């Protein structure tokens, strides 16, 4: 599973057709839903190569980019916006981590794929609540797979696992 997104510069060479994106939540809306009444202090980071390797080793999931969009939450906890690979495009999502380092909530911000939007179902996302960096977070194990949305559900699961490892190895030391 470990790899880098090769040919990143090729993005600049290709002009994609306009995506039929469905935006469910803006960043501000997700913050309000996941941490009602809280205030947020941006703490955007660029992970070092050593930190990226450590995250990959801890999570067994690739780090797609060194850029980390994280906000420190008043009252404790972190709000992180990230994205995972979808069938055609990236799937932006938000992760709320409580002051104890456990998942508070997961929200899908946009979904641009033809199929697989069952990852937005509240009952499926609720499986992540309370998970920590020590949880298996394995699709078909402690996280139920979604038939017909296997790719999206696996990548969201991997994304949460990666961000929990990033929190434990990097963000937790920012407190």
């Amino acid at each position, binding site marked *: 599973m470990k*790899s880098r997104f090769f040919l990143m510069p*090729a993005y600049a060479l290709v002009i994609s057709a306009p995506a039929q994106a469905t935006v469910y939540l803006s960043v501000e809306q997700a913050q309000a839903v996941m941490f009602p009444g809280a205030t947020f202090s941006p703490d955007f980071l660029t992970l070092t190569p050593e930190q990226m390797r450590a995250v990959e080793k801890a999570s067994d999931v690739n780090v797609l980019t060194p850029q980390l969009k994280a906000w420190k939450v008043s009252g404790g906890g972190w709000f992180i916006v990230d994205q995972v690979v979808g069938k*055609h495009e990236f799937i932006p999502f938000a992760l709320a981590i409580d002051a104890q380092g456990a998942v508070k909530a997961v929200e899908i911000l946009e979904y641009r794929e033809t199929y697989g939007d069952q990852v937005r179902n509240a009952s499926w996302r609720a499986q992540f609540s309370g998970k920590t960096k020590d949880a298996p977070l394995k699709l078909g194990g402690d996280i139920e797979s979604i038939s*017909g949305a296997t790719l999206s559900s696996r990548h969201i699961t991997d994304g949460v696992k990666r961000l929990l490892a990033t929190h434990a190895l990097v963000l937790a030391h920012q407190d």
Partner: protein
Amino acid sequence: MPHVSFDRSRGLLAVLALSFSSLSYQSIAKAEESHFGYVYTTDLLPQGAKEVEQWATWRHQKADGYFDQIDGRTEFEYGLTDKLQVAFYANYAWSRAYHNGPFGETTPPEPLSYDKPGPEDHYNAVRFVGFSAEAIYRLWSPYSDPLGVAVYVEPTIGPAFRELEAKLILQKNFLDDRLVTALNLTYAPEWRYDTVEDDPKRKAWGYETDVNANIAASYRFAPNWSAGFELINEHEYNSYTFSKESNDGYFFGPVIHYGGKKFFVTATFLEQLPWASEHSDTVPGAIVDRRIYDNDFEKYRLRIKVGCYF
């Protein structure tokens, strides 16, 4: 010089119009992706999803003279379950040929081999080939199992053509599913109602078996876009049991794919590699410069597929 026209008027235009008519539905339909022009993957429609696909395959140039063939295919796919996809489609072809066969004889393409132009004729025909049904069942998913595995079966029935194609489809993804690789193994006996070789006044069902081993790889280098290659190895036998081989050919070329929320487009260009070899049933003169030009082998192929979702 005599000309033979089998419904020649507007044949090319008619097939092209049929082949690309579904493009007009793009604005109202949705879409899924077929990464490759020739190689199948284990990605199927989810339960209840519907899709229309339009294929156009241009086959160009035989041993000599001129040869062009456009195979059209209009297909409707449906996800019966998340693991079982069925499809129904119509196949039709247009072709023109002149002095294209062994020793310079005008020879029609394989799907229209029941036409018998004279060796000096200019051949031009548009024909309906047959209706096909297709079912693909996925045993393992590449996203949750070590390997994607699916089985495929496709019967075709036409006025002078029958085929039963069976395929094993393997898929393995890498680099967070952005690099897709696939292998297809195909066994396809086919029957044609044609004149008997020793008695041209009599017709009978003859048969041959196509056996193919195809591989492909494609990398998603940008959102919605992927590109890669396909390597096609086709064998033909005048038996069901891998004996009496007549032809084998290798084709290689690039594939590019755009997959969006509402439609996909895939295009593959193939050139036959000079790797053909002579076998027990190879027709004399069919191999030129180590490329085979018998039956449905030609020098270049271009396949374009468009898919739209409902």
